[in-house]
């Protein structure tokens, strides 16, 4: 399976839960799980090749000009992480199915989870650091959604915000660091960068890049001093915590440090920064963790501590330490995910996570107890479990490392960290599960169903198996991964008995010390609680809140919701910039001859000027200003026609008609006059701004028209190639559907979104307080009788077939002569629109076969299909091919694939205009206006007295 597909599968899978939730919660979980399983299978199929030492690549050019390509790579490191992400993801999906309550929206949960999973898989498979950055930011965003999943809990929202702020800031720093790194290496491809180690370390920018990248890694992996967000993220549902904080999100920082290890590691700066941060985090996290009474908080700080441990090992910069780091990543993922899930089970069953209120669960929840006991003992480093193996190796590495010139300092601190680690692991077992059964649990606990404990039990099984047979199960994996990290071949030998070496005594000291700490826990906890210490959340809030206030004040001053203010700020800024540019550069009068003023343009010009002047003075009367705007629009259409742009003229006329009709409909519900709201001084000021902008624009246009273009325009290319490349002689249409087809596609989507927004707004309007105001509305004019007069009804019915025929004609000839999908769509829409006008909404909707939403959607899909079709022929999006066909008795005519695209445009335009129309009409009905199902109000053919 292509690596790109493996990374894309979770994203595609994210579409499923939202749909499948309608089929039930099991279907939803199975849909998410299937996508994950498929991706995992695809990944494992590559595993043999990776174990043989191959490095797999998938390269897709995306934006090669920027150095941003969708390049994916799979080596040992990627395989390990992708395997963890997808494998534990699968377990989490199973676990979450049983964990989430009925009231939790499960579709949303799985969608977020799959998005996150995709982003993480993307990070570990990226071979391009810019692509990696995109996925990196995606993890920040999707983890924000996951952490804040319980939107009703303030802690959840605050925790999500804090996580996003911290990791997002780190991400920003990392973007800068990665760009510097790419600049030094001369490529954004990891494969290239990894070969440029000596150049990068010799560069004067090395330290800057290192610090910036490490900021990203440390914030993501919760390293001191950025460790505080992780415990606050525990407000998330437990499956999220288990996933994010055992195997994925927080490991992203570690992954990146490991990935860039050959390039960045091995220098003094690296050692000083990474090893120190890791060491401090390890000790600090372990100490704080011991005194946490919340189960998940304890696990959170233990995660912080273990992340510190791995960071420290990576920081040592030796190959042996890297091997240990890799091994511990595997071990930590297994026992920590199991522990988190087990904590969730306890919370789920006993309705509390407070260790002080628990105890004695051993008899009530034997299965959960077994799982926790295995995982916690592994975390404490008790032989023969897997945590013991990696901890022993870590202590050995620590013993051989000199920190700050003091050979005893680092081993001592590492042992201290291990001691506290043992203490909290034992506490977890002792204070929750051992002791007498209590009778005051908030809810009588018992073991959950198999579905819920299956996942943690599986992981606990792994803990034991890896502990017993480390070389058989993980030896090859660790060797391949460590080889990928160090960029060489790593020597891996994991075994239990190292002999009477210092690490053994350090380990023994840690276990002994841990037991002592646990025994003295009561008095120590009281002392800890009484000791003054900085509270991270308070400090964080003290920094963030003033900053947020400042930003809000600034934004409110500029964007206070009044359109006039935005317009004024924008206009003043543009005028000032223009004036500054004009004053700064030299001015040479234009060289072109001015053309003489002929009567026809003069009349058009006079019309425009008169309308503009009238608008400025009479704009308070909204009906009059609408008429004036219509006149301006038609004059512009005439101008297009005068300058031989029939396509533009046609479009302009049709758009003008549709706009005026729709605006008239909207005006029906608005006051007919704009009230005077601003003072005279203010109007004077606004007038001055407007005059400055108008004069500036006029001067600019005048200056431009007196000059030739500084660069050759693209028009000549279009004119020369429309027939050869696009197969059409109507250059405008060829530009729309072929040369700039991408733009057109974007534009019709914007149109469609606009129409849907209008629909959504009117729907909202029909419900909330505005609906009550609408109902209480007193129309400012009496209602007229005979709203649907016979003459109009008959005329529009007669016109409809002609309009449709002309529409089809314009559509078909569009590629070669004025016309095309857009114009035809507008025309047909207006043809239908007059039916609405003539006989009213209810009559028209009763005869409407298709939903306008569906018309828009089908149009967008057809346009997309028309564009994608050219991929089949291995051509870029929207390359049209064309041919000439003869069907007797017709003349020879042309068929182009661009017509499919144009058909999509046509449908979207029709749907958009009519959806807006029917949305606006609904307001009237909601406001209590009557609608009739008969075609006309007074039907002369009906018997007298029975008029409809």
């Amino acid at each position, binding site marked *: 399976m292509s690596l790109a597909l493996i990374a894309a599968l979770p994203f595609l899978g994210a579409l499923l839960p939202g749909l499948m939730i309608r089929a039930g919660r099991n279907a939803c979980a199975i849909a998410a799980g299937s996508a994950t399983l498929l991706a995992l299978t695809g990944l494992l199929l590559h595993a043999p090749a990776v174990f043989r030492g191959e490095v797999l690549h998938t390269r897709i050019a995306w934006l090669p000009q920027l150095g941003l390509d969708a390049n994916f790579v799979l080596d040992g490191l990627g395989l390990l992480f992708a395997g963890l992400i997808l494998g534990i993801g699968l377990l989490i999906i199973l676990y979450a199915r049983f964990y989430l309550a009925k009231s939790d929206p499960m579709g949303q949960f799985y969608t977020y989870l799959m998005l996150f999973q995709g982003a993480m898989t993307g990070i570990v498979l990226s071979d391009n650091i810019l692509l990696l950055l995109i996925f990196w930011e995606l993890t920040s965003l999707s983890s924000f959604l996951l952490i804040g999943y319980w939107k009703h809990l303030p802690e959840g929202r605050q925790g999500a915000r804090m996580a996003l702020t911290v990791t997002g800031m780190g991400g920003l720093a990392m973007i800068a660091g990665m760009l510097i790194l790419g600049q030094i290496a001369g490529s954004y491809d990891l494969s290239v960068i990894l070969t440029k180690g000596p150049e990068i370390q010799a560069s004067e920018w090395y330290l800057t890049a290192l610090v910036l990248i490490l900021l990203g890694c440390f914030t993501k992996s919760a390293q001191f001093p950025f460790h505080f967000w992780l415990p606050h993220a525990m407000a998330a549902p437990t499956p999220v915590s288990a996933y994010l904080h055992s195997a994925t999100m927080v490991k992203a920082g570690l992954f990146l440090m490991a990935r860039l290890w050959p390039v960045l590691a091995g220098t003094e700066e690296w050692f000083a920064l990474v090893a120190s941060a890791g060491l401090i985090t390890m000790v600090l996290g372990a100490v704080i963790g011991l005194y946490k009474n919340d189960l998940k908080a304890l696990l959170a700080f233990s995660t912080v501590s273990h992340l510190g441990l791995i960071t420290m090992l990576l920081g040592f910069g030796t190959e042996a330490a890297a091997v240990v780091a890799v091994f511990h990543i595997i071990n930590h993922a297994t026992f920590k995910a199991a522990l988190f899930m087990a904590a969730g089970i306890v919370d789920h069953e006993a309705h509390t996570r407070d260790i002080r209120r628990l105890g004695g669960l051993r008899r009530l929840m034997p299965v959960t107890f077994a799982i926790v006991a295995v995982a916690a003992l592994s975390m404490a480093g008790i032989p023969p479990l897997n945590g013991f193996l990696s901890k022993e190796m870590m202590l050995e590495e620590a013993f051989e490392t000199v920190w700050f010139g003091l050979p005893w300092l680092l081993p001592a601190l590492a042992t201290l960290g291990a001691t506290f680690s043992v203490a909290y692991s034992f506490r977890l077992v002792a204070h929750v599960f051992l002791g007498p059964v209590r009778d005051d649990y908030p809810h009588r606990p018992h073991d959950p169903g198999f579905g819920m404990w299956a996942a943690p039990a599986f992981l606990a099984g792994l803990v034991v198996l890896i502990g017993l047979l480390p070389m058989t199960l993980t030896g090859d994996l660790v060797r391949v991964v460590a080889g990928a990290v160090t960029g060489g071949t790593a020597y891996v030998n994991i075994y239990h008995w190292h002999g009477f070496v210092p690490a053994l005594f350090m380990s023994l000291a840690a276990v002994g010390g841990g037991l002592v700490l646990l025994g003295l826990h009561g008095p120590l906890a009281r002392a800890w609680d009484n000791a003054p210490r900085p509270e991270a959340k308070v400090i964080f809030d003290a920094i963030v809140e003033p900053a947020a206030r400042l930003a809000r004040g600034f934004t409110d001053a500029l964007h206070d919701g009044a359109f006039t203010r935005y317009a004024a700020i924008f206009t003043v800024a543009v005028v000032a910039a223009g004036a500054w540019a004009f004053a700064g550069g030299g001015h040479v009068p234009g060289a072109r001859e001015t053309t003489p003023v002929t009567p026809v343009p003069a009349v058009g010009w006079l019309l425009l000027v008169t309308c503009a002047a009238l608008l400025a003075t009479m704009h308070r009367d909204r009906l009059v200003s609408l008429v004036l705007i219509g006149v301006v629009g038609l004059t512009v259409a005439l101008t297009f026609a005068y300058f031989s742009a029939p396509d533009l003229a046609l479009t302009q006329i049709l758009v003008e008609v549709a706009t005026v009709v729709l605006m008239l409909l909207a005006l029906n519900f608005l006051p007919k006059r704009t009230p005077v709201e601003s003072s005279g001084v203010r109007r004077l000021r606004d007038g001055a701004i407007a005059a400055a902008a108008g004069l500036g624009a006029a001067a600019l246009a005048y200056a431009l028209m007196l000059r030739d273009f500084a660069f050759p325009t693209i028009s000549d290319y279009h004119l020369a190639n429309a027939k050869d490349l696009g197969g059409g002689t109507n250059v405008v249409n060829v530009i729309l559907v072929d040369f700039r087809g991408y733009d057109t596609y974007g534009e019709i989507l914007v149109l469609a979104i606009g129409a849907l927004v209008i629909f959504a707004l009117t729907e909202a309007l*029909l*419900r*909330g307080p505005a*609906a009550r105001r609408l109902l209480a509305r007193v129309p400012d*004019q*009496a*209602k*007229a*009788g*005979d*709203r649907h*007069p016979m*003459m*109009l009804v008959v*005329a529009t019915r*007669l*016109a409809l077939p002609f309009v449709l025929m002309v529409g089809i004609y314009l559509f078909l000839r569009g590629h070669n002569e004025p016309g095309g999908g857009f114009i035809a769509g507008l025309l047909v829409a207006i043809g239908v629109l007059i039916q609405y006008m003539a006989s009213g*909404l*209810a009559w028209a*909707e009763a005869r409407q076969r298709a939903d306008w939403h569906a018309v828009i959607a089908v149009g967008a899909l057809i346009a997309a299909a028309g564009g994608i079709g050219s991929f089949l022929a291995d051509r870029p999006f929207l390359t049209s091919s064309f041919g000439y066909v003869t069907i007797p008795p017709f003349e020879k005519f042309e068929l182009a694939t661009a017509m499919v695209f144009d058909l999509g445009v046509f449908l979207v335009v029709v749907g958009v205009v009519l959806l807006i129309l029917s949305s606006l009409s*609904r307001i009237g*009905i*909601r406001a209590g206006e*009557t*609608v*009739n*199902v008969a075609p006309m*109000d*007074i039907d002369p053919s009906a018997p*007298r007295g029975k*008029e*409809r």
Partner: protein
Amino acid sequence: MELAAEILIAALMVISGVFGLIGSFGLLKLPDLMTRLHAPTKATTLGVGGVLIASMIHFAIFADHISFHELLITLFLLLTAPITAHFIAKSHIHREVRADELPPPAGGAAWGCFERTGDGRRIEVPGERQG
């Protein structure tokens, strides 16, 4: 033949010009809206029609092909002009005239402009839900 055609075309154009002028003058000069309505609808329609007929003859005789554009233009003019006039008159009556100012219509019927038709009938529009 050509001379006759030229004379005919010229005559039609003059006629249309005269009608156009009269129409515009009437629009300016007539006292109130209902009478003023006659000027553009009748005179201007005929005026434009003259030009169109002239154009058709011109193309048939001098350009050797028959042009149908003018027929279409005529069709649309004839279709839209009365409807426009009808609506202007309707809104004028609606806004400016009270029902008792008008003479009763023949046959005991009511004036359409004042007849409250369709009231009291609420149609549930498909898709509209009461919130």
